[in-house]
């Protein structure tokens, strides 16, 4: 059938365009304007050219928080994706336990970020927190307030606890949509469990896995509330990720110009990585 082209349909997109302009484009333009100026408040601005960018890109502080953020995203992806697949593979496909498992999995996703932070902040405390107290009773020298390694451990475990469910639910949804005929055929061929996973389940999950990785990457790269509530970026600067550093700069120090320059670089990194990811995903889909 011939596809109907009607360019008047583009007008239907106008409301969305207005909304996006209001919520994203205008604020972004303002940030660009801020990034080339300096202010001392009172809505007065002074031209500063590209000085903030040069300073930012040559400051150790920025590169440190950027690398901390990249390491954090890498670690949580390396943990959450395999763990999510493993749990999804082992969840029941039929019966009453399906709903129980689904509700249990969805629970962490329903808890707001700051509440998750508070839960783990208390959970990890060595005096009244169950986890911190038990860890110390067992002889581990665990204290996330003083030890950077413990602080990292807590923030990572918290993120895994909060977001692995998302990967599980996405993988589970694609696993239950695989027709039984595939498994029957595999059985007839005498395929091993590993072969079933490698040649049936993994290819079927590829699309949702790509989405899961993209979502988890972007979310972890922008993470703010949870580590802020638990560690406040400390001890020292050990868990100061980009967003925490950005807020410190913009609101704590009221350095709007440098903070705007940092936002733009931050935004460009996210844009580049998301674009690469999206392109790889759609290009390999087209090949298939």
């Amino acid at each position, binding site marked *: 059938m011939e596809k109907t082209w009607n360019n008047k349909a583009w007008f239907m997109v106008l409301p969305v365009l207005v909304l996006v302009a209001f919520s994203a484009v*205008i604020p972004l*333009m*303002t940030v*660009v*304007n*801020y990034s*080339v*100026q300096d*202010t001392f408040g009172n*809505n007065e*601005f002074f*031209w500063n050219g*590209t000085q903030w*960018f*040069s300073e930012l*890109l*040559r400051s150790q502080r920025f590169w440190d928080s950027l690398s901390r953020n990249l390491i954090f995203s890498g670690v949580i992806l390396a943990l959450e994706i395999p763990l999510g697949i493993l749990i999804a593979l082992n969840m029941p496909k039929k019966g009453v336990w399906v709903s129980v498992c689904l509700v249990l999995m969805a629970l962490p996703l329903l808890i707001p970020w700051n509440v998750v932070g508070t839960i783990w902040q208390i959970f990890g405390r060595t005096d009244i927190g169950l986890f911190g107290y038990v860890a110390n009773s067992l002889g581990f020298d665990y204290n996330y307030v003083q030890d950077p390694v413990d602080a990292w451990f807590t923030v990572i475990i918290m993120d895994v606890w909060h977001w692995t469910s998302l990967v599980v639910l996405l993988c589970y949804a694609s696993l239950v949509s695989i027709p039984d005929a595939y498994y029957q055929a595999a059985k007839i061929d005498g395929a091993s469990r590993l072969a079933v996973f490698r040649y049936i389940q993994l290819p079927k999950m590829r699309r949702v896995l790509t989405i899961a990785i993209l979502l988890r990457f972007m979310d972890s790269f922008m993470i703010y509330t949870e580590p802020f509530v638990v560690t406040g970026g400390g001890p020292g600067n050990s868990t100061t990720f980009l967003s925490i550093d950005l807020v410190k700069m913009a609101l704590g120090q009221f350095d709007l110009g440098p903070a705007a320059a940092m936002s733009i*670089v931050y935004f*460009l990194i996210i*844009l*580049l990585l998301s*674009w690469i990811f999206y*392109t790889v995903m*759609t*290009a390999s889909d*087209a090949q298939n």
Partner: protein
Amino acid sequence: MHLDFTWMAWTWPTAGFFLGILFLLVCMGVWEYVSPGGNPRVGILRFETTRGDRLFISLLGAAFIHIAWLGLMDASLWWALLLSLGYAICVFLFV
């Protein structure tokens, strides 16, 4: 209704920058009107790109060229712009 945009802290250079982007988008619209379809092809990146994709790659690349220039070089930023233009031409020819 009185609209006040002073809170956006506009400057002439940034306004020029956004008008430039808008101009590029309008040009792409006109180009699409004159020759519809976006001219999809597979270039050196080995995946299909349209004119819009090529513009996006050019702009994003230009942003990173400028940032790298600011971070590594002390010479005038106009050189980065020149480099970005060369890059954009290459993208439109080969990608």
